[in-house]
């Protein structure tokens, strides 16, 4: 019964009435996807490390704030968070700032996506970092403090370097996820890869949606796989000789 007319070269066709090609749209979308995901990852790593560390501190107040952050940002769906940053926040701030955010901020969708995705992923990274710190033998912290290192130096030089090594595998999956999650940015006007897919498969190239969706899916797989390879490379580079992770 199926009479679908397959055409895998559809992305190399000219966009009707323009001098553009569909593959150029996909490349441009991929560029924004990489920019959003990588920038958000930087935010997520830095902030996530701070928050995850804060959750393990003896100071109950600081740890409480960090816990609240994690619960808040981890339990609200990403698409809702982006919507709130993009549509709700400008209405909450003074009118002139709100108007600036709405009308004059450069690339508002991209910047909001980077920040929103970064804050969301930071909560997830924080949990990994916290788990990593707690997985270290208790004596490690004492071994730093007993030599006169401050608590901050103990975290910086003793606990975090090992915690990072312990959590590289779960961090790898967060890193892969951030590319997938960046697709949500399309919902707040970012013209990234998923947006371009929706755009092309909508009214622009309505006849060969299956091929375009499949090609975009393959691009996401390729990106996630590359992310995985990069993390594996880093894991090998920082591997401690003779140390079996998960051991004592």
């Amino acid at each position, binding site marked *: 019964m199926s009479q679908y007319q397959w055409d895998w070269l559809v992305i190399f066709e000219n966009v009707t009435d323009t001098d553009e090609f569909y593959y150029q749209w996909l490349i441009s979308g991929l560029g924004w996807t990489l920019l959003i995901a990588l920038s958000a990852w930087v935010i997520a790593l830095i902030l996530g490390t701070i928050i995850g560390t804060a959750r393990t501190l003896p100071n109950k107040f600081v740890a409480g704030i960090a816990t609240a952050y994690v619960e808040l940002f981890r339990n609200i769906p990403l698409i809702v968070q982006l919507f709130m940053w993009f549509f709700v926040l400008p209405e909450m701030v003074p009118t002139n700032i709100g108007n600036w955010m709405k009308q004059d901020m450069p690339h508002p969708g991209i910047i909001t996506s980077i920040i929103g995705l970064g804050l969301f992923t930071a909560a997830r990274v924080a949990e990994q970092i916290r788990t990593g710190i707690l997985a270290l033998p208790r*004596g490690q912290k004492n071994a730093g*403090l*007993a030599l006169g*290192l401050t608590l901050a130096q103990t975290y910086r*030089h003793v606990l975090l370097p*090992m915690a990072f090594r312990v959590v590289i595998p779960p961090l790898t999956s967060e890193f892969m996820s951030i590319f997938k999650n960046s697709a949500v940015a399309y919902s707040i006007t970012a013209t990234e890869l998923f947006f371009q897919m929706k755009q092309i498969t909508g009214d622009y190239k309505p006849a060969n949606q299956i091929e375009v969706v499949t090609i975009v899916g393959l691009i996401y797989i390729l990106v996630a796989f590359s992310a995985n390879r990069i993390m594996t490379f880093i894991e090998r580079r920082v591997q*401690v000789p003779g*140390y079996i992770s998960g051991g004592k």
Partner: protein
Amino acid sequence: MSIIRFVNVNKWFKQLHVLKNVSLEIAQGEVVVVCGPSGSGKSTLIRTVNQLEPISDGEIWVIDQNVADHRTDINALRADVGFVFQHFNLYPHLSVLDNITLAPIKVRKQSREAAEQKAVQLLERVGLAHKKDAFPSQLSGGQQQRVAIARGLAMEPKIMLFDEPTSALDPEMIGEVLQVMKDLALSGITMMVVTHEMGFAREVAHRVVFLDHGEVLEQATPAEFFSAPKTDRAKQFLKQILSPMH
């Protein structure tokens, strides 16, 4: 002139009274062995000296500073008090050399060259100069503990604390660690050692402190303590610890 002085020290873990009114003085240059049955509070006691365990009340004076006073710069104090752990606690991601130089560089602000030069000397002293580039997980337990001792000494501490330094070691490695500790004891540094190694106590300790149920029950020279313990509990303890099974 005592370098460590416990004054009526009490500590509770919730309902559990683990240190009961402990008063104890250790003089500069003295080597003191603290012993007692497991659960007697001896590990807790030695950890209160550099505030790895905070105390509930009382005072502990270390190098003329009250460590229980929150105005005391505890980091500076800890730098002057070396601590050797039962489980070594070397930093697994750092080489032997970096394990030793980390604190001198970060806390004492020594140059890397100076710190490394000193570290190599210390490694020679504990017989491990050839392992300076190895990582902790590539060393035996005995070697790790000797590195840990070198790490403590690198800060040029006035006091060395040992918390059951040989308990986690295989029997054939205990000797090498004890030998390093004996050499150290003879160098004149103040040492407080929690251990079951009665041979070590007999050989180099100036004094033995017997602790049970959080109380200091006896203090005596090794000769007195081993030949004529005063309390029944000390007698019981010695009988168990010196039996052929151990």
